[in-house]
């Protein structure tokens, strides 16, 4: 095909885009919704994986040892724990390290004065255990409750955490079910709305395509402007939704951080800017192309 013909086709597609106001608006709107849904899901997934990682990072199990427990006894327990497939990391904290970090974190604090006053180190040796996921702490704390360890263990502080851990694993699985449910229902909605708009589009173009064939246009010549029109709709839908996301997140970035337990959606948006832009353009232009192909295919075989 000649360059001139391509220019013609592009010009004609642009004209259709501008002149077929209501059609353009309807198509643009549907694609816009789909792009919004797609990017929301992307951000939602980002938020969920951030939260899960964050919470799992924060949860650990601390085992405090009785005052006279030797380092080698603790080491033996550590060895046993690291054999567990559930255990990701075991960290030993000596009384001295505990003291130092207390001093560091409590500078200018009245507690520190009190500590200095008693002139002994009141901290116990401890190990901090991290599992791969929140639901795995149960197994570990059952293991630690065995009688053979009760001589050396002063306290396993899962008493409060157990509840949190349980809640957390419930929350994580809820979030996953919710995510899957959301994906399915939003996806279904997008497909339904797109399909219905397309049916309208197809119907309104039937007559025009018939005339074009009648005056001797070949199929590729008819198809071209429609594809251009579809791509333009998709491009503008992507652009609009990008502006909407950027604007909204920018203005509510403060409130969002509280709502998402410290997850900064705006920051996430900014660091994943390229991925989000490509996602939006792909969804937008992809749907625009598919919709225009569907809209005319039927009438090109007359």
């Amino acid at each position, binding site marked *: 095909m000649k360059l001139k013909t391509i220019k013609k086709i592009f010009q004609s597609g642009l004209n259709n885009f501008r*002149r077929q106001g209501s059609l353009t608006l309807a198509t643009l709107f549907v694609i816009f919704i789909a792009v919004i849904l797609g990017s929301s899901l992307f951000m939602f997934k980002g938020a969920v994986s951030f939260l899960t990682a964050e919470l799992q990072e924060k949860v650990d199990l601390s085992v405090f040892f009785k005052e006279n427990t030797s380092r080698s006894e603790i080491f033996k327990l550590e060895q046993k724990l690291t054999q567990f497939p559930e255990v990701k990391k075991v960290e030993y904290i000596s009384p001295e390290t505990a003291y130092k970090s207390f001093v560091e974190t409590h500078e200018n604090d009245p507690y520190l004065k009190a500590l200095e006053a008693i002139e002994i180190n009141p901290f116990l040796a401890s190990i901090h255990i991290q599992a791969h996921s929140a639901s795995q702490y149960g197994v570990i704390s059952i293991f630690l409750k065995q009688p053979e360890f009760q001589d050396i263990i002063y306290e396993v502080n899962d008493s409060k955490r157990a509840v949190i851990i349980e809640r957390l694993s419930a929350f994580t699985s809820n979030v996953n079910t919710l995510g899957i449910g959301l994906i399915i229902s939003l996806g279904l909605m997008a497909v339904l709305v797109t399909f219905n708009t397309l049916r309208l589009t197809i119907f309104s173009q039937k007559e025009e395509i018939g005339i074009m064939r009648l*005056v001797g246009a070949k199929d590729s010549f008819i198809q071209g402007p429609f594809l251009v029109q579809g791509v333009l709709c998709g491009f503008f839908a992507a652009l609009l939704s990008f502006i909407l996301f950027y604007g909204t997140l920018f203005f509510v970035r403060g409130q969002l951080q509280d709502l998402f337990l410290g997850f900064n959606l705006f920051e996430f948006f900014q660091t994943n800017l390229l991925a989000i832009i490509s996602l939006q353009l792909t969804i937008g232009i992809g749907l625009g192309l598919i919709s225009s192909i569907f809209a005319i295919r039927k009438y090109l075989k007359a």
Partner: protein
Amino acid sequence: MIKVQNTTKIYPPNLTKTTKIALSDVSFEVKDGEFLTISGRSGAGKTTILKIISAQEKPTKGKIFFDNQNISQFKDKDIHKLRQKIGFIFQDYKLLSYKTVFENIAYSLEVTEFKDDLIEKEVGEVLELVGLENQADYFPGELSGGEKQRTAIARALIHRPKVILADEPTGNLDPYHSRDILKMLLKINQLGATIILATHSKEIINSLQKRVITLQDGKIIKDEPRGRFIL
């Protein structure tokens, strides 16, 4: 040359209660440069003949030749080659509603990958010929019936087709504009185009003094070289 051989058209192709024989065993030839009028009452089959010649409808029986080519042998994707040799004028204009007058006319040239600067010039000339030079940027929705019809005629002429099929081109026009359009068709005919005009207007047929085929219930009842309105 166009040859219609023993052609029958039944709507729809399978037998139902509403089955209609639109054409029954019709045969005739149209020579290059001829001006043929097809006459007949409403429902006689005039439009059906034009549709079959331009491959918009397939004949149920029979063969149609366009320049010795059997048009039923055209593949779907090659139909545009046949259509580019024909200029169409319809009673309901069939203009592209999202294109201006200029673009509607230029479209007939664009489909043949005509040169751009020539398109400007040729469309300008034809617009003048049909008296629409001031409405070039109007959309069909902004035109009167007569102006739409003149746009359609300009589109049918612009690519200098061998054949012009005109279906009731004056049906929506006042006598003044009707005469204008007939004059235009005669002029194009003198320049060498074959014209097939379908009409049920007594005045037009009697004033043209050209060959007339008269149809009744899908059959040719008369085919005269200098025909008159007989119904």
